[in-house]
């Protein structure tokens, strides 16, 4: 099968894309939606990409842009559901030692960070991209990515320390 066929790309990248989307969007439904929308854009425009080896970066960049576009829209037209509860408030009450950290609690901690740190940190931990690729995906300078990863890690550690039972 062609390495850059639609199906091959989906097989190779839909899982890390979903996890990145989840770190940004904070809900499974929105994350799934973002991933589907990203591949939808690839189906429509991916053919225009001359250097197919950049397909992975293209997909992550597109997903990030899609998220930013939606967030801008939501900032203007906020949707507040009565049943909405801040998940971080719920998890904060259940202490967690570092040994017990699992995917959900890591994601919950990540989601408490500002998006400025969340996006580079999620990409860093997915280990799919170097810091240079992350800079390209997030469209920020390399130095900015490095300092955001560094600061983001500090904040993440603090969150875990706060969760430790006293």
């Amino acid at each position, binding site marked *: 099968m062609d390495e850059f066929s639609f199906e091959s790309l989906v097989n190779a990248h839909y899982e890390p894309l979903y996890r990145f989307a989840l770190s940004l969007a904070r809900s499974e439904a929105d994350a799934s939606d973002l991933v589907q929308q990203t591949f939808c854009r690839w189906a429509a425009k991916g053919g225009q990409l001359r250097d197919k080896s950049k397909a992975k970066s293209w997909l992550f960049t597109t997903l990030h842009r899609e998220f930013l576009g939606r967030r801008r829209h939501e900032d*203007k037209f906020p949707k507040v559901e009565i049943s909405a509860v801040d998940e971080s408030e719920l998890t904060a009450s259940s202490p967690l030692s570092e040994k017990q950290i699992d995917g959900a609690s890591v994601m919950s901690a990540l989601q408490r960070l500002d998006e400025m740190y969340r996006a580079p940190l999620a990409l860093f931990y997915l280990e799919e991209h170097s810091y240079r690729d992350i800079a390209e995906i997030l469209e920020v300078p390399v130095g900015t990515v490095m300092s955001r990863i560094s600061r983001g890690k500090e904040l993440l550690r603090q969150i875990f320390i706060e969760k430790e039972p006293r």
Partner: protein
Amino acid sequence: MNRDEARLILQSCRPGGQDAADPQFAGALALAKEDAELAAWFAKQQIFDAQISRDIKSLRVPPDLKAKILAQENPQLQRITEPPAAIRWRHLFSFRSPTAWAMAAMLLMLLSLAIFWNQSGRPAHFADYSAQMVYAAVNDTNHVDVENSDMKQVVAWLGAHHGESQFTLPVALNGSTGLMGCRVLDWHGQKVSMLCYGLNGSGHVDLFVTEADIFPDAPPVDRPQFASSGGMPTASWSHDGKAYLMVGHGNVADLEKVLQPKETVKSLFPARISFKPAGLSYFAKIVWNKPSVAVSNL
């Protein structure tokens, strides 16, 4: 390179060893070999990072996501991703089935009745319209068709999309202050224009404009009526053959503020904005109403 610089660089070094050959890290890694404290710090970092990385990568992905994505590309696969229940329903309503023919006949009859009922002069009451517009203001996923804060462009867009584009606005809504976007809706075949505002002091307000003569009970001319529909405060009035419905996302006092601006502003009188096509483009003409027009309460 000092220890702090090395730390900053090494923070971006992935724990899986993918960056080992990256020259950017070479200097910092070399320093870590000579500096025991830096080496210990880096080792701890890598353990922490490896754990977080493992945990994030273990996050469960919805099992049907891949099938849904592939179905976007290949409509044939869409059938596979449908739940079995949907397939059963489709078989039930196969055109070989007598049940399907009976259902189709019943639907046709109901449709005919609905059309007859609609054409037999059933009046579209303003309260129904109001409820529907409030629903659109609150529940529709796409709140506006276009986001734009320029009144000229918004009115031109409404005109180009067959919405109401000639209307008289209350002073507080005149001009582009607080304008956020617009939308064209359909009410029993009649186009309705919606203007969306985010106003200082009054919050989010949506204004719906359509022809007044489609309602047997159009709101009073130039005298806003305050009410509540679907739990949302509304104000409605008519002016120059148009029916106006304002929906607030706060409380009724916010709407009163919009419709009864301060004296200094009130003295400006509402503006009439009209647009007419000029070739392919539109241009705006603002005509100030004379003081004699009885809209001072607006």
